[in-house]
């Protein structure tokens, strides 16, 4: 298999993201991944970040923002809706919100809306593997492992293999 030079290596980006996030961890930090790519990233980063800060006890959650999306009336409810799992009190937490690819900003808007239905966090930091540009809302990630310009027709899709390793692939945008 030849590697398309345009497709970033997700594992490389993951360690870059880890390096960028490590200094940001505080005692009250919670890591929340957006279903499904962000959740995989959060799962991988959690033990690493915890190791770097043995004094902080990090908590972990996942979000599925399907119920908050603004394109629900065009797309309907996704058939694979998963429950959000946030088993800790969001109130006054410093939240690191993780997603794989940052694009229009609408997913993040929906995720933040949902998050606020759980309580009032002290802060939210958005961290992504790829910031591909094209935002439609005044939202942008504080931390991105890489910035890329991608044509509209293309979609960067994250997948996870049997060894828990992450890969990006390019797909046509539906």
């Amino acid at each position, binding site marked *: 298999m030849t590697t398309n030079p345009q497709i970033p290596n997700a594992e490389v980006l993951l360690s870059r993201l880890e390096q960028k996030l490590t200094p940001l961890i505080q005692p009250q930090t919670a890591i929340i991944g957006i279903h499904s790519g962000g959740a995989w990233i959060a799962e991988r980063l959690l033990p690493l970040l915890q190791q770097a800060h043995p004094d902080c006890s990090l908590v972990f959650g996942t979000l599925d923002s*399907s119920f*908050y999306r603004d394109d*629900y009336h065009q*797309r309907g*409810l996704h058939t694979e809706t998963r*429950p959000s799992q946030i088993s800790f009190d969001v109130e006054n937490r410093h939240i690191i919100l993780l997603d794989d690819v940052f694009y229009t900003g609408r997913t993040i808007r929906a995720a933040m809306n949902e998050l606020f*239905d*759980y*309580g009032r966090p002290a802060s939210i930091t958005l961290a992504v593997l790829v910031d591909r540009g094209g935002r439609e809302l005044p939202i942008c990630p504080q931390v991105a492992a890489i910035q890329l310009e991608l044509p509209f027709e293309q979609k960067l899709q994250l997948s996870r293999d049997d060894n828990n390793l992450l890969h990006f692939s390019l797909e046509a945008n539906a």
Partner: protein
Amino acid sequence: MHNPQLTKEGKLQHLLTTEGLPRAILNQILDTAESFVGVAEREVKKVPLLRGKTVCNIFFENSTRTRTTFEIAAKRLSADVITLNVSTSSQSKGETILDTVNNLTAMHADMFVVRHAESGAAHFIARHVAPHIHVINAGDGRHAHPTQGLLDVFTIRRYKPDMHNLRVAIIGDVLHSRVARSEIHALTTLGVPEVRVIAPKTLLPQHVEKLGVQVYHDMNEGLKDVDVVMMLRLQNERMNGALLPSAQEYFKCYGLTPEKLALAKPDAIVMHPGPMNRGVEIDSVVADGGQSVILPQVTYGIAVRMAVMSILAGNSE
């Protein structure tokens, strides 16, 4: 024959009955309901899915419980909710069902939740509403009560996830029960290998075995080794007459007591769609006992109804 509750693309347009619903749609409803169970446990129990939509509960037959759970479900989805008890208003003035439905359509309702004493009423309404409107059957005569059937199946799945390895017994007035019919269709579609009905012959439809169930008349045989015991409500007016001699005799033969429950598997769960007649179909010791999941049923009822409403509303063009 085209299934009137599906769109041409095979998506759910109305929820009228669990009969003939593809397994994939049943699972989609149950999976989505899982997500809504999480929503109910949060500080803010609302999601904005149906914001700006109007859900209209039209109850041609009164039912406080069902109506309330649908209201809560719709409100948790941020919909505007109107409730009409038609039994007490327009029907007595000679307005037909269609008049009522057309009036509400003109008020730009998006979804109708309908209950009616006549079998087939929800199908009838679904056939005559404007194409953008979704109809949910909240009980029609003896025919169907799909959200109740689904919430019962949801409850079973939560406690007994392996549906392919289950024995379920449904006890009581199957003849008049829309709940039983909806449960039976949902369970058989989801692959439950053995569904039993236990009742005297007076409370069973003539060809109940055609629904894919095994028929028992004796609790001691029928309850043997079952995983799920579903009790049905016995309406007061059926207790004395030609169907049954008395509530006492019914309880003696078909009431669920700890002794009879002991015949089921030790980890069997006990269910009831409510409202219960304690001492008629179920002993309080059992209803409030460790194997009872009757209250979780009520909780899950809201999640299942939220799931149905959000899937339907999402299937609009």
